[in-house]
């Protein structure tokens, strides 16, 4: 089945130790998104790629970066995780952009713990 896969499902890192979360998709969608979701809060968009075009949200900290080496894969790099970065990180894809009435398909998420 076509799907969005996130690895690992649970990630534990130490304060200040760089961590990379990965996302892959078999949907061949043009757009890939990374969201941060803290407990009982709405998912917050960090950035998205339309093909190779990177779009950063204005309030996304510089500590968060992303790479999309090809259509299928997208990575979230947290350069120096702080305690406040502990959250669920959700990857999503869509065929096109939200303005063109496209739904988003989400992966199961990676829960990041920072010790």
């Amino acid at each position, binding site marked *: 089945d076509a799907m969005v896969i*996130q690895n690992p499902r649970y990630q534990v890192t130490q304060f200040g130790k760089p961590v990379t979360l990965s996302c892959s998709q078999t949907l061949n969608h043009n757009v890939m998104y990374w969201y941060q979701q803290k407990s009982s809060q*709405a998912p917050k*968009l960090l950035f998205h790629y339309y093909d190779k075009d990177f779009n950063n949200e204005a309030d996304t900290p510089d500590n968060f970066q992303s790479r999309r080496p090809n259509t299928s894969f997208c990575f979230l790099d947290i350069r120096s995780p702080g305690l406040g970065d502990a959250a669920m990180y959700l990857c999503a894809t869509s065929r096109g952009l939200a303005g063109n009435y496209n739904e*988003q398909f989400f992966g*199961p998420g990676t829960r990041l713990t920072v010790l």
Partner: protein
Amino acid sequence: SQQGEEDPQALSIQEGENATMNCSYKTSINNLQWYRQNSGRGLVHLILIRSNEREKHSGRLRVTLDTSKKSSSLLITASRAADTASYFCAIKLTGGGNKLTFGTGTQLKVEL
């Protein structure tokens, strides 16, 4: 905040009853989408309604949109225990870039 505000924050009902959740927003939108999230999981798309549409159905789900009141509602009829989840509205703001802004969510609990 431009995000959708959902009401109620939490809802507890008995199996078989209907559940209604509301989403209000402040600016003009291009489309509004509803998503479900089971505890500790990713979101699942339920319904997309365009700004020129007033009502859409999908199985036991009914979504309405009132752009004059800047609000939408999600009705789940004949609820089941498996409907227990958080429900989020997500809006595409007109001129707000190509992204969805998610609401605060309603936690629905359906008891046997």
